């Protein structure tokens, strides 16, 4: 898993509550990504980061925010969870610039009830 740890692995939360998912890497890679996986949609990019405090939106960023205050941690926050955000969330890293090969974490299954 290229030294990627996602936490929590499973979470059930209520509609309207804030939720933060954490991605931790041990190898100081510059590029980190958050994807969501849904049946019929594959993997869709939510946000990504190309360095500490440098982040950008992906294709499905509405309702999500991210922060990266340290190289090793990339946090994904759902400000006010909705049922449409029930999904499996994956963190990924790219090991070097110019090489878009991505290594994925184990995923976090989030259920919003």
């Amino acid at each position, binding site marked *: 898993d290229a030294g990627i740890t996602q936490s929590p692995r499973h979470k059930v939360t209520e509609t309207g509550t804030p939720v933060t998912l954490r991605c931790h890497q041990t190898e100081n890679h510059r590029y980190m*990504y958050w*994807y969501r996986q849904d049946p019929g949609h*594959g993997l869709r990019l939510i946000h990504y980061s190309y360095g500490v405090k440098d982040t950008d939106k992906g294709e499905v960023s509405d309702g999500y925010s991210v922060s990266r205050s340290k190289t090793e941690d990339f946090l994904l926050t759902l400000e006010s969870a909705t049922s449409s955000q029930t999904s499996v969330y994956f963190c990924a890293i790219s090991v070097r*610039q110019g090489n878009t*090969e*991505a290594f*994925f974490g184990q995923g976090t299954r989030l259920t919003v009830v």
Partner: protein
Amino acid sequence: QQQVKQSPQSLIVQKGGISIINCAYENTAFDYFPWYQQFPGKGPALLIAIRPDVSEKKEGRFTISFNKSAKQFSLHIMDSQPGDSATYFCAAGFQGAQKLVFGQGTRLTINP
């Protein structure tokens, strides 16, 4: 456009047969085409990748065929085995953007 379209959504193949999954893209700026394999409860893992300067790449039983003029690429799994049963994703990327666009996924089942 950034879309990558993958087909079929699901595929059942007999052991020993050939599994074929297809993808099509629109953005001619894409210059990196990987395939990922995902087992239940796990994250996707890179299986094989190709760049558009070659038409085919083979690694063991897995082959990518690439047709630049048609903007299509496909994954062929020869002598398919039950252990190949997984979900497969194609993707496309370009170095300037440092990110990937994924297809919708194909659930492959190999019957023994």
